[in-house]
């Protein structure tokens, strides 16, 4: 990871892990997805991002991952200045974060172990490290005994836990979860968010996009509410 920090702005605990300053994003089609957003998320926080469809949640996430570039403003994530960062540095930024998708995105031809190991191979980990870290990550999400199962043999909740293990396996500073409970039943949703809360307690910042208001109320974390590309609420303690 030493390589990662060479172009970062010396991250420290006091510095925000995500910062948006006057950020706007307009797509070439003319859609104003994000307008003049200012936000500061410090290391170790758990933040829910809520909003109706078309509110700008996906664009917000894409901007953090540097899949999209802001038209105006400055975005800093994990010490990387995303506004001035060259494209070749994007993989280094992404290695500092773990991503959980709504549709799990597990590779159906790989078993559970291989799906998680895949994220480590990408960053060039040795086979020994892969074996050790994948086992640890699977134990953390309670799937230590399912390493050889294929995704099709797992329930929706279990599949999402594999996705979570994959996001965790490279020990990221930040977890971005894009509606991770969208495809699982309510009980399993609580389990997933409980797991994320556990991970957050160990020091990892969690940013979770959700539509599920019950979850937001029950877990009592900071809530950022987006509407028509603007932040309309930013409250601590699950109120919005």
């Amino acid at each position, binding site marked *: 990871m030493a390589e990662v920090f060479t172009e970062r702005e010396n991250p420290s605990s006091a510095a925000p892990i995500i910062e948006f300053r006057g950020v706007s994003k307009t797509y070439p089609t003319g859609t104003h997805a994000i307008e003049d957003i200012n936000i500061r998320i410090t290391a170790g926080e758990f933040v829910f991002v809520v909003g109706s469809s078309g509110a700008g949640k996906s664009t917000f*996430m*894409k901007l953090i*991952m540097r899949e999209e570039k802001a038209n105006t403003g400055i975005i800093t994530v994990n010490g990387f200045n995303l506004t001035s960062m060259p494209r070749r540095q994007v993989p280094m930024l992404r290695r500092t974060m*773990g991503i959980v998708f709504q549709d799990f*995105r597990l590779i159906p031809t790989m078993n559970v172990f291989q799906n998680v190991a895949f994220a480590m191979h*990408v960053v*060039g*980990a*040795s086979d020994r490290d892969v074996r050790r870290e994948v086992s640890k990550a699977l134990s953390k999400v309670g799937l230590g005994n399912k390493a050889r199962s294929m995704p099709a043999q797992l329930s929706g909740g279990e599949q999402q836990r594999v996705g979570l293990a994959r996001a965790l396996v490279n020990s990221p500073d930040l977890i971005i979860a894009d509606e991770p409970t969208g495809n699982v039943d309510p009980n399993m949703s609580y389990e997933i968010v409980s797991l994320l809360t556990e991970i957050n307690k160990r020091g990892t910042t969690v940013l979770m996009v959700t539509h599920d208001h019950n979850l937001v109320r029950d877990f009592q974390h900071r809530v950022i509410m987006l509407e028509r590309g603007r932040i309309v609420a930013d409250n601590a303690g699950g109120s919005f």
Partner: protein
Amino acid sequence: MKISSIKYLTGEGVKNAWVNRLMTLASIGVLVACMVIIGLAILISENVNKAVGKLEQQNVVMAYMKDYNWALYGEKDTSSDAASADTDTAQEGEASPEETADANGIKPGDYVIHNDEEAQALCDKIAKLSNVASVTYVTSEEGLESVKESMLEGQESYFTFLDEEYGNPMSGAAKITMKDMSKFDETVEQIKQMDGIDVIQSQNDLADKITAIKRGIGIAGFWIIAILMVISLVIVSNTIRVTMYNRKLEISIMKAVGATDSFVRIPFVVEGVLIGVISALLAEGLLYFCYRVATETIITTLNTTDIVHYGDVALLLLLIFIGIGVFAGVLGSVIMISKYLRREGSEFAAI
């Protein structure tokens, strides 16, 4: 890049080819066909070149020299009178020494070949021309024999009569073969300009035909290879594209967890190269088998052995095939994956 990554990515490339085996097989089939056609074009071209080379060797140029004896030809019986007349003139001192003709009427300014040494020296001079492959000195006696041999019975007796009555009608000559028939006229002109050369006999129409055949084969070969190279590239690119779309999910996850573009690209390049190399080996084997069968039939039917042996070109063909395979594999995959990563490789919207 770490060794563990290279090992992993190579394995992924091989796995890709296997998972996508139907498409891989189809690509190998088309690539083998392209390579075999390229190989056949090369073999045909080599065989035609060999045949043309033989023709070139046979297409000799005869450069007849200004032979001293030949200059006097037909005046044998009057040579003594002419000599006495010249002597008288010289004694009278009416002409300068440079213009004075000798006893046979040959002036010093007339460059003539007096003996075999001078003739050989002229041959050596001709041999120094860049396009001359070989020069052999043919004496007038050898020339006459050769002419007689090529004549029919009645015609031959005419030359025998001439020889007995007036002396050998042939002059010494240089028998010349050339390296490059396309420079034929230019070389003949250079020889003509040399002192001591009287007349040149050549078959420049044959030289033109040989040059035209060689040029035609060269052009046809170039276009066959160029077109088939493009076809090979398109085939491999398409296979890679299919694999790429099959692996869209994997690519999106790879990019989301921080894979570099080259990391994403390498398995596809490995797959492309693998297809290319397997095709090259199969094409080499298939071509060897086909060529052997074809040449055996030709040798038996036409009773000729003037055929290029496969062993002489086997390594060259294998290198060409592997070159085409690797070129098509690397370029096809790099083009496809780069295009994909640039335009469509969105992590969120990948599926």
